[in-house]
């Protein structure tokens, strides 16, 4: 056994060209697999983060009856508000929170109409919780107009031909279910990573909301809460739910299940791509080694002639490949880690399709990133693939007739 390992080791170094090809195949395979993963994963993560920052935040609290049936008069009661705010101010994981009034309504201009979710916010507080103020493309964030300003999304602006300073008629029902319609002046146009969010959500000031529904006190339907670590969102939301009455705190994964589903959807097509890459790689190694066996026919024949048995020849070829794969793995990992870290910092610019990416819910810069477990998975996958790849040519070598093989040129 020791001798075989020794021979295999020497063989690796004897024909540097051939070794180089197999070595590079493995390096390339590991890098390709990881980089493809990193790009997909990076795009998804970015999209998720964008959605959390711009609209969802980590946890939201709604009244239970509002969750069952979205209606204006299913708001938090005064005692609930008091209770929730006590709970939030004593919980040390909570970083900040904002309260919102929400109503379903319709926005109309001369160019058409659209169903809207009208969100009443207190600008100074909302600013700390979500990043809409950083995503204003045109106009400003509740600083310019005194009289009924509204922030609308880029999609809605396109659809209804709205610009900053123009007026949109927003209609919804007040607390007594009367129909109300009021003109709002567009103060700013925002662009979040989500097209559908930009199409159907508008922000107005809480005081305007309260006035319009003919109420004295604000109607609060939603608390949006940021905590210090998004991993703790389930734990914290459960804790909050247990401490308040007739209301439920939900983390982002419950509120927007499509965010976690999205991972799986793209995972499916990603799997197909990874399989194709691994297949291509395996095939490359098989091919190179087959060619190598062809080229080494005489050498292998000689070994068989001087008394090496077939099992040992087989083992030798497999060990050779294994050596190469094992040596290539750290290099491949290093290159992958280096390129992913590098591009993760400076990003890959897809500006030429940037607008398209935005519309699809991505930012135009892609920052590849990958979970550390992927390094292990891909490596194991590639090493197994290359081992399987070495068996096929090794078997071929067994079929040589020593007497003929020595004479081969």
């Amino acid at each position, binding site marked *: 056994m020791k001798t075989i390992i020794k021979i295999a080791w020497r063989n690796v170094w004897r024909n540097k060209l*051939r070794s180089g*090809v*197999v070595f*590079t*195949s493995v390096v*390339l*395979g590991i890098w*390709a697999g990881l*980089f*493809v993963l990193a*790009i*997909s994963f990076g795009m998804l993560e970015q999209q998720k983060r964008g959605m959390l920052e711009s609209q969802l935040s980590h946890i939201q609290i709604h009244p239970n009856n509002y969750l069952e049936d*979205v209606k204006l008069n299913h708001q938090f009661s005064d005692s609930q508000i008091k209770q929730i705010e006590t709970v939030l101010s004593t919980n040390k994981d909570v970083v900040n929170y904002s309260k919102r009034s929400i109503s*379903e309504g*319709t926005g109309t201009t*001369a*160019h058409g109409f659209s*169903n809207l979710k009208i969100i009443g916010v207190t600008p100074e507080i909302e600013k700390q919780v979500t990043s809409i103020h950083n995503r204003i493309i045109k106009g400003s964030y509740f600083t310019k107009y005194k009289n009924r300003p509204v922030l609308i999304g880029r999609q809605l602006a396109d659809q209804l*031909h709205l610009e900053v300073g123009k007026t949109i008629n927003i209609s919804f*029902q007040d607390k007594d*279910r009367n*129909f109300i319609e009021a003109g709002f002046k567009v103060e700013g146009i925002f662009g979040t990573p989500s097209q*559908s969010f930009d*199409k*159907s959500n508008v922000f107005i000031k809480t005081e305007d909301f309260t006035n319009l529904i003919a109420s004295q006190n604000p109607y609060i339907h939603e608390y949006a809460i940021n905590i210090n670590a998004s991993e703790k969102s389930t734990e914290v939301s459960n804790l909050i739910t247990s401490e308040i009455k007739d209301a439920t705190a939900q983390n982002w994964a419950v509120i927007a*299940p*499509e965010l976690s*589903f*999205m991972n*799986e*959807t793209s*995972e*499916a*097509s990603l799997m*197909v*791509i990874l399989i*194709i*890459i691994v*297949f*291509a*790689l395996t*095939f*490359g190694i098989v*091919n*190179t080694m*087959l*060619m*190598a066996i*062809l*080229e080494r026919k*005489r050498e292998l024949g000689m070994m068989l002639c001087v008394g090496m048995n077939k099992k040992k020849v087989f083992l030798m070829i497999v060990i050779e490949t294994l050596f190469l794969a094992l040596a290539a793995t750290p290099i491949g990992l290093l290159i992958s880690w280096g390129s992913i870290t590098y591009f993760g910092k400076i990003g890959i610019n*897809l500006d030429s*399709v940037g*607008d*398209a*990416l935005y*519309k*699809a819910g*991505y930012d135009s810069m892609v920052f590849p990133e990958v979970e550390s477990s992927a390094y292990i998975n891909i490596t194991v996958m590639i090493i197994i693939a290359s081992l399987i790849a070495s068996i096929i040519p090794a078997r071929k070598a067994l079929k040589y007739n020593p007497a003929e093989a020595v004479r081969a*040129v």
Partner: protein
Amino acid sequence: MMILKLAWKNIWRNKRRTFITLSAIAFAVLFAVMMRSMQEGLEEQMVKTSVENSLGYIQVHTKGYWDDRLLENGMTVSDLPIQSIKDLDNVTIVDSKLETGMITNFGTQSRGTYVLSYDIEKNLPKQVSKKLVDGKLPQNGKKEVILGIDLADYLDAKIGDTLVFLGSGYQGATAVGLYVISGLLDFHIPELNRSTTYMSLSSLQELLGAEDLVTSLMIELEKPSKLNETATNIKSVVGSDYEVMTWEELTPDLKQLIQASSAKGYIMNFILYMIISFVMFGTVLMATQERKYEMGVLQAIGMKKRSSMLLVCIENIIISIMGVILGVVAASPIAYYFYNHPLELQGDSAKAMLEMGVDPIIPFSINPMIAVNHGLIVLVISLVLVIYPLLVIKNLNPVSAMKL
């Protein structure tokens, strides 16, 4: 001529070597075509879903309607050359359509909705009957509507309830009418489920006080790939008073979504091609090494370097072409199989795709251009790789090459 013959014989002399090289090229084509087929299949599916759901591949409206969707910008059916459009090549269905925004009310709940016409006799648009999850389609002559399930939910209305529709009719008249819900639709697209109502064309025309009025013609195609060609033909039929728009112009969003998915696809393809090129290079490299002795002998017995370079070149071209053809031939049935039996997704990911309005399947495209394009790319790569054996032959020393 002799070299050509020699090249041909060489190819068949060492069958195993030829086979290995051939298969490297064939598999390269196969992998590239598979990957691209899947990506394009997903894109085609996005178009199909969206186009079937609401748009049609091509629409005709009065000039200016698309920017200003007012009923006053509608068209009179009798003025339209519908039959001439139908007679055009590639056109399968011409559906006249009326749509407008209205408020619908049930009890104390009200909501804005898009009211669209539905052709009861021809059962068009087809997706309406396919998306019906409860109840039945409206009956001819009855004042019935079908609407998205989320809209009905919001209104707290169910089948058999009477809805009030209210809005502005043709030329400023007020339009008000009562309609009974006969069925519910589930488009699997939340936005459509929240906002869509269908009623028969005649009912809608009556409600709006606009007899004979439609807002658009929706045109379905036999071959979506000939989109622009057909649009040009339609343009010449309808004249300059009307605008002819393809789905790409109607929903730039969708076009962009597809571009975005292509952008990601290009990166993946680029990486795959890096591997493919390397695999092919490895094979060529080993094949060249193996033939050093043979080349040495040829040169020793007096063959000029240039001739043996030509020889290798010809051999490579023949093998490359055969490999590409083999790859295309092998890829076609596989792509065709997955076109007919798309990979089906299960569980949560399926749900996510439904949310995005796409069926939870990964179909493959059978666009022949994929095979042609990627076959050509692989051919070019393999021809570029011939440079390596040529360099080896150029620098070959016959004496040392013949030493084993």
